[in-house]
């Protein structure tokens, strides 16, 4: 087997550009899915049944279907069904944000519910409004508890962005797979792709391990 690694080096620009898109997809998705998840988590505890029902339906729909289907659906079905046509990268972002938002809402909900009512009462007894109790007492504690879980979601998200390559968004996967089929250098490009994902993902995984240790709950 003769390997030609120079072809990888020659195409480093395209690969790095793909890696850049992978990073921005993950960052943008998480930036939007955190507030979305928190909002949904709060609404799921709403007094109004309709709101609870709608938000629950949203979460269960996105948690129970594969992400790749959601991306395909947004790209091929949504334009027909809803008459809403977006470019590939926007479609990809919507798919990712709604998917990760659903997962984040479950994480936040578990965290918020884990704070005992005594803490809520203590804030109320000081004269805080329900919102002030949420902001200064309940949410900061819940966030600390779920930070490791959110970090794990981030790691999955970072890798799952590769699925958007199916609708021709030029992320690292798409770039690598395109180069593979153009050059027929399957071994080289799949290896390069693996190395790049690993080089980006491994430090993050280590950081998550650190977060798990750092934010172990002590009371």
């Amino acid at each position, binding site marked *: 087997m003769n390997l030609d690694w120079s072809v990888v080096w020659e195409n480093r620009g395209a690969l790095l550009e793909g890696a850049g898109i992978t990073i921005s997809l993950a960052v943008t998705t998480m930036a939007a899915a955190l507030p979305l998840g928190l909002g949904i988590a709060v609404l799921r505890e709403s007094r109004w049944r309709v709101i609870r029902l709608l938000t629950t339906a949203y979460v269960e729909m996105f948690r129970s279907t594969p992400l790749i289907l959601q991306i395909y659906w947004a790209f091929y079905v949504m334009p027909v069904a809803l008459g809403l046509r977006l470019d590939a990268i926007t479609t990809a972002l919507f798919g990712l944000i709604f998917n990760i938002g659903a997962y984040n809402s479950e994480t936040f909900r578990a965290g918020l519910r884990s704070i005992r009512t*005594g803490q809520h009462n203590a804030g109320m007894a000081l*004269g805080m409004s329900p919102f002030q109790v949420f902001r200064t*007492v309940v949410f900061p504690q819940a966030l600390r508890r779920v930070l490791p879980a959110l970090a794990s979601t981030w790691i999955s998200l970072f890798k799952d962005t590769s699925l958007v390559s199916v609708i021709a968004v030029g992320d690292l996967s798409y770039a690598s797979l395109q180069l593979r089929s153009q050059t027929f250098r399957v071994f080289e490009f799949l290896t390069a792709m693996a190395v790049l994902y690993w080089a980006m993902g491994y430090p993050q995984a280590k950081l998550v391990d650190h977060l798990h240790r750092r934010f172990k709950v*002590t*009371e």
Partner: protein
Amino acid sequence: MTIDRAHATALPLLWFREVEKHYGGFTALAGVSLQVYRGEVVCIIGPSGSGKSTLLRCANLLEPFSSGAILFEGQDITRAARPASIRQRIGMVFQSFELFPHMTALQNIMSGPLTVKRTKRVQAEAEAGVLLDRVGLAGNAQSYPSALSGGQQQRVAIARALAMHPDILLFDEPTSALDPETVGEVLAVMQKLAADDVTMVVVTHEMGFARRAADWVVVMDHGQIVEEGPPALIFGSPTSARTRTFLSHMHSAH
């Protein structure tokens, strides 16, 4: 016989009038009427499940009640535009401390003034420092609750309640969750507050404290007040048979 109640005025600071609370078929409070005057220490004693804590929590609107009224400085608390405005002026100390675990002792004490009163940070911090000193924990400003003993946590919780400059402090069994060796330090702080004429309502099983610090003792059983009076009378010559039974159980238990 008229019983002298030194702090009595025309208008009680906190006034329970025929307060009833029912959950389902259970009656937690069966028409409780009680006056608490400014500067007074009222201890509520009685067997577990007699409604003492429920009464206290109703006064702070942490629990709704079914009928009757609770007046704070003559104002019906359930008619307040915002419950928070009443709670600001009524401090509460919980059995389980409920310090905020993500804040240091100092931050816990500052949390009320900073969030609710929008006090300037420098001022809030200075006041919190003074309060920590007052509860004997000046050296623990930067400690997180998890690093403090139960007694220390409860003293911080008292300082946190005091930071709002409340008109009255409610204590819900403040020493019941403590190791025996730390009960004394909390009671000592409370006794000091009593000496400073802080108005307090204390639900407690500490008969020694009630005897020493209370101006007025209230005995509750089955959601009702069975007897009330100055400690000398309640502990010396109780008139109610239920009080006598309760006190004899407490004595044999200690």
